[in-house]
Structures are given as structure tokens and as C-alpha cells.
């Protein structure tokens, strides 16, 4: 039989003293699933954690004391600590999402730098053929091609 926990909304948290367990209903719109996983993972060494989804966008987290015995104060403390961890995980998840592009760019640059510079053989084997090359300003032309003397035009012999 579950009973509400003091200072916590009755619909969100309930304690089951007989089984030394507490149940917490978490709204997935406020706390994304990766954050719930993260907080649950932190607690699996302290208690038995079980996740369930009684409603569409809500996850019920059940925490049961491993010892099999816990009073109301201990269960209340467990819920409070889990809620704090959940908030921390949700915030870290948000920071990761916000900085994902930056993290991926920095990682890619680090990996590219670790690969070292290409050798002369690598450069010689580089295949340019599949890349479209547009040079409207003639930047890739040699100086001779661009500014060198033009070949004289053949003059007609019968000219005066």
C-alpha cells in the first residue's frame, strides 16, 4: 500500500513502507529520457531501480532499498536525492545538446590533427577527378598561360 510523502505532491511521489520502496512519476517533457536514464544509473548501486511508463509521456521510477527496510524519512531522502540528480542530469543533457556542434567540431579537428600530415605519396595519389573545379578568375593558371607572350598570328603573304 502506498502513502503520499510529506512535502511532495501526492500524485507525483508515493512511498510503500512494506516493500521499502518509493515511486516517482517523472514528466518526460520536463526531464528527457536520457536524463532519467542517467539519474537511474547513478542510483543502481544504492537501490533497486525499475522504470515503467504508466501514461504516455510519464515515466514511473521505482526505487527500492537494497536492505529491504527503510522508514519514511529514508524514503523521502531517497526521492529528494533522486530528484536532485535528475535535475542535474537534465541540465547537463541540455548543455550537451546546445554545444553539440562545437563538441563535434573540436573532436573532428583533434582526430584530423592526430592523423598527421599527408605524405608525398598520399598527395601524389590524390584524385582530383571527381571534384568539380571552377576557376573563373584564372587563379589556377600558370603565369605563362595567363600573361605570357601570345604566339604571333600567321600573316598572310599577299598583304601589302
Amino acid at each position: 500500500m502506498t502513502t503520499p510523502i510529506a512535502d511532495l505532491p501526492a500524485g507525483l511521489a508515493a512511498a510503500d513502507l512494506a516493500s521499502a520502496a518509493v515511486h516517482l512519476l517523472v514528466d518526460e517533457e520536463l526531464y528527457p529520457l536520457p536524463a532519467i536514464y542517467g539519474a537511474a544509473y547513478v542510483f543502481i548501486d544504492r537501490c533497486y531501480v525499475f522504470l515503467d511508463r504508466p501514461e504516455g509521456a510519464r515515466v514511473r521510477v521505482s526505487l527500492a532499498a537494497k536492505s529491504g527496510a527503510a522508514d519514511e524519512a529514508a524514503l523521502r531522502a531517497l526521492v529528494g536525492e533522486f530528484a536532485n540528480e535528475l535535475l542535474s542530469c537534465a541540465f547537463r543533457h541540455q548543455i550537451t545538446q546546445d554545444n553539440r556542434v562545437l563538441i563535434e567540431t573540436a573532436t573532428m579537428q583533434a582526430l584530423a590533427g592526430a592523423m598527421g600530415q599527408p605524405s608525398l605519396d598520399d598527395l601524389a595519389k590524390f584524385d582530383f577527378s571527381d571534384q568539380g573545379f571552377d576557376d573563373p578568375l584564372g587563379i589556377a593558371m600558370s603565369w605563362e598561360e595567363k600573361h605570357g607572350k601570345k604566339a604571333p598570328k600567321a600573316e598572310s603573304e599577299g598583304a601589302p
Partner: protein
Amino acid sequence: MTELRFDRQLYSGEAVDQAVKAFAGFAAFELEQTDAHWVVRVTPRDPKLARRLLGELGNHALGLTVQRGGAK
């Protein structure tokens, strides 16, 4: 016999299977899947350890699911 119902949107099927294999020496297991759940029926060899066995099985399945990056 006790029945555990792991939500398929929350637990990876491979993780549940792996957890059941890890605890195969301590209980008899029956596995079934429904549209929404991975159903595991557990009959512990030592009834005194039933609570601990069920709890550790759930923790193991959850831990493996998290390590796999979720249910997917």
C-alpha cells in the same frame, strides 16, 4: 513465480536477454514479448532470495540498456 514487465520503449530487448542469461544460475526464467513489454517470469531457486534476485535482474537490465544508449 513472479512476473516482471519491462517496457519496450524503456528497456533494450538485448539488455533484458543478457540480464536473464547472467542470472540463469539462480532461477528459472520464461521469456515472452508483447507489443509493449518484454515479459520475464522468474521462479527463483531459493525463495528467500527472490526480492534480491528480482531487484538485481532489473538493475542489470537497466544498466545494460543505459550502456547501450537506450532502448532504441
